[in-house]
């Protein structure tokens, strides 16, 4: 039991702590603002007019301020990549929290929607209150022009009202286009509506300028609830304080907690607090986008294009000043195919001291990749005779990145297990490529590679790489460093590698789906009392099963830490 708890805590505790902290901060902010508006003396008259609607709308506005500023931070990808790289500064626990940045962005976004609904409802109630409880004593407090004015006119003719309506519409568009099915099926709708966020923030800055809610500035000279000397005000204080006209001023002074006003109440707009919350993250995000735009504006040189079996193309490119770590990915843009689409591909070869080119493996599935492959391999069935010095003209490509992923942590564990499904092997191929250049300088002492594919031909993508690394490690007397397991799920015919040079792979090829519990049990036995990093890049079902297994593993004192790779 204790071991299961330890596994669960190693995997889930940090995430849940972060969420608890965020919830606590939001709740405290809500409560503090609520108390301020319900019992603060400077809001006494306003509270009398508006009631509970005032407190709820202001409290939800303060939580909205917090979330609107936090929601931008997880999307500053270059900054997060740099944070990931500074390994001396951060602990691995903090870096693992960075893996969940997209989830945190979604959580903040959902809470923005929820609190916007609360805020809008409260302000609708306020609009009705402004109209019904029009104050004759303090005309400066009013937003309505006369008693009983239609609240819809109030909403549509004030700056906060009309900007609020536009904000809600933009939020509605963004929220409805962000569901999982739309992101998978029509990514463009999601991308273009989500870029409306910049309009959202600009209108948000205008929304808070309107200043419909005012606070009283002279609370010391005009304590709330005091009586004016010249008139009896039956509407400005509760009936228990009502003073009949016959009482003299002297008698009034004797009565406790009834004071005479020295001057009339003055009211003033708030300073727009939202500007303080939102400006810094917005500037940071805009700076990062500008930096990415400048960095990605130089086209890359295509060095070679290689066709692999099972519809995979390897693209080798060269770009000056491009540095990447294994496990990172890039965003590829090809204007000849589509001007605005950026597609993510993991690097399979990073630039090193000896070789400056970097490479990606592209699986052709979908219209963008099909167009790209047609441009890279023009149709070969034309009969014209090519001149001898025929220059292959490749389309212009732009590369944005590299961006960090959880797979960068493979080298920081003593033992790592890399589980790949099909083309998901690309981040681990980059790891293997880097190990070819030298393995002793990393903390990694043992690497398990479990690669599951449907077709035998798929293994040929990296068969050479696997065999080369296997031979190198055998020569250097580290046979236990690399453990390869290949699984072929297509059980139609008995297949194996026929080539002699792929002998190490053919003996490690297994037919059928892998049994994860057995594999983990075996790895646990060989690595007792160690912390093993599990990296998965594959279908959701495999990922879910591995995550559950990591959370509940309790044999042999080994703790499996789960790291999941995800793009969209």
């Amino acid at each position, binding site marked *: 039991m204790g071991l299961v708890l330890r596994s669960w805590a190693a995997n889930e505790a940090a995430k849940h702590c972060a969420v608890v902290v965020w919830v606590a901060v939001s709740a405290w902010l809500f409560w503090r603002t609520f108390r301020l508006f319900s019992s603060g003396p400077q809001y006494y008259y306003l509270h009398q007019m508006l009631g509970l609607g005032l407190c709820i709308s202001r409290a939800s506005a303060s939580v909205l301020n917090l979330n609107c500023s936090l929601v931008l931070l997880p999307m500053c990808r270059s900054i997060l990549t740099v944070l990931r790289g500074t390994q001396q500064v951060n602990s691995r626990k903090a870096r693992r929290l960075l893996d969940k940045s997209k989830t945190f962005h979604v959580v903040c976004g959902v809470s923005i929607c929820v609190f916007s609904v609360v805020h809008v409802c409260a302000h609708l109630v306020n609009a*009705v209150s402004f109209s019904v409880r029009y104050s004759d004593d303090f005309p400066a407090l009013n937003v309505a022009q006369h008693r009983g004015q239609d609240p819809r006119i109030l909403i549509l003719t004030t700056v906060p009202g009309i900007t609020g309506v536009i904000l809600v519409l933009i939020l509605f568009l963004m929220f409805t286009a962000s569901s999982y099915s739309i992101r998978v099926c029509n990514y*463009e709708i999601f991308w273009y509506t989500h870029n409306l966020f910049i309009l959202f923030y600009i209108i948000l800055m205008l929304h808070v300028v309107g200043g419909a809610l005012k606070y009283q500035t002279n609370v010391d000279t005009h304590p709330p609830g005091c009586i004016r000397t010249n008139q009896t005000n039956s509407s400005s204080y509760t009936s228990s304080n009502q003073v009949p006209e016959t009482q003299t001023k002297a008698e009034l002074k004797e009565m406790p907690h009834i004071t005479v006003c020295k001057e009339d109440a003055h009211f003033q707009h708030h300073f727009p607090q939202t500007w303080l919350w939102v400006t810094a993250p917005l500037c940071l995000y805009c700076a990062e986008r500008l930096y990415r735009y400048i960095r990605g504006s130089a086209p890359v040189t295509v060095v070679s294009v290689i066709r692999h079996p099972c519809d995979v193309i390897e693209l080798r490119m060269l770009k000056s000043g491009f540095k990447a770590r294994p496990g990172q990915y890039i965003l590829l843009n090809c204007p000849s195919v589509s001007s605005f689409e950026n597609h993510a591909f993991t690097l399979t070869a990073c630039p090193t001291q000896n070789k400056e080119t970097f490479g990606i493996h592209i699986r052709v599935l979908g219209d963008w990749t099909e167009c790209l492959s047609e441009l890279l391999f023009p149709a070969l069935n034309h009969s014209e005779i090519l001149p001898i010095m025929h220059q292959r003209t490749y389309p212009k490509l732009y590369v944005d990145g590299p961006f960090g992923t959880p797979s960068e942590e493979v080298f920081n564990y003593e033992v790592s297990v890399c589980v790949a499904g099909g083309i998901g092997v690309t981040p681990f191929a980059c790891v293997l490529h880097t190990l070819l250049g030298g393995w002793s300088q990393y903390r990694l002492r043992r690497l398990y590679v479990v690669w599951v594919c449907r077709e035998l031909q798929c293994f040929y993508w990296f068969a050479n790489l696997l065999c080369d690394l296997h031979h190198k490690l055998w020569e250097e007397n580290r046979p236990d460093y690399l453990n390869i397991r290949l699984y072929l799920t297509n059980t139609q015919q008995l297949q194996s590698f026929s080539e002699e040079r792929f002998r190490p792979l053919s003996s490690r090829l297994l037919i059928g789906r892998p049994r994860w519990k057995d594999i983990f049990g075996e790895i646990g036995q060989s690595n007792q009392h160690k912390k093993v990093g599990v990296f998965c890049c594959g279908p959701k079902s495999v990922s879910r099963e591995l995550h559950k297994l990591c959370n509940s593993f309790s044999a042999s004192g080994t703790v499996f830490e789960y790291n999941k790779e995800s793009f969209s």
Partner: protein
Amino acid sequence: MGKIEWAMWANEQALASGLIYLTGGIVGVAGQLKGWEYAAFGIAAGVFVCLLEYPRSKRAKGTNYERTGQYCFTVCVKAFGPLTSNYYVRAFLHAALCVPGGFMLATVLGCVCLGMASLIYLSAAIHGEHWQPIMPKSEPAKSVTQSIKHPPQNPPPRPPAEMRRKRAEDLESAAYVNPLPVTANE
């Protein structure tokens, strides 16, 4: 790049606006605010829109993502035939349903959101899309190949026990050989 399916987005919007319309209607009726008849209409319209929009349409190309338990709704919506599969009809229906919401403060938001969904449906209809039900696939029964139906009745013929035994002086004429060559461990 590829064809954008507007109907999918319009469907999400319409479902969300149906819920907002419903909520606004409930608030209006519960608070007995001025014009609560419009709020009551808002409740009915909101429920109707949610029921109509719950089943997702089948995509022209690609995998379908059903909503949980949408099969019974699919059957009901399919029964109305061209009334529900044509998106022009849906666009005008939503536009008509949203108008009464504008007369009351609580349902104003639902009115505006449903209006936007109606516009996106119009765009989908102009692009030639229409609603198709997602029916569960009936798997054809796996046809067993001929050879398995009639397994052999008799064992294969083999020589008598005398000949089968491997004799030391006559290894060549033994009736069996080792199927795999025995080599050193890899």
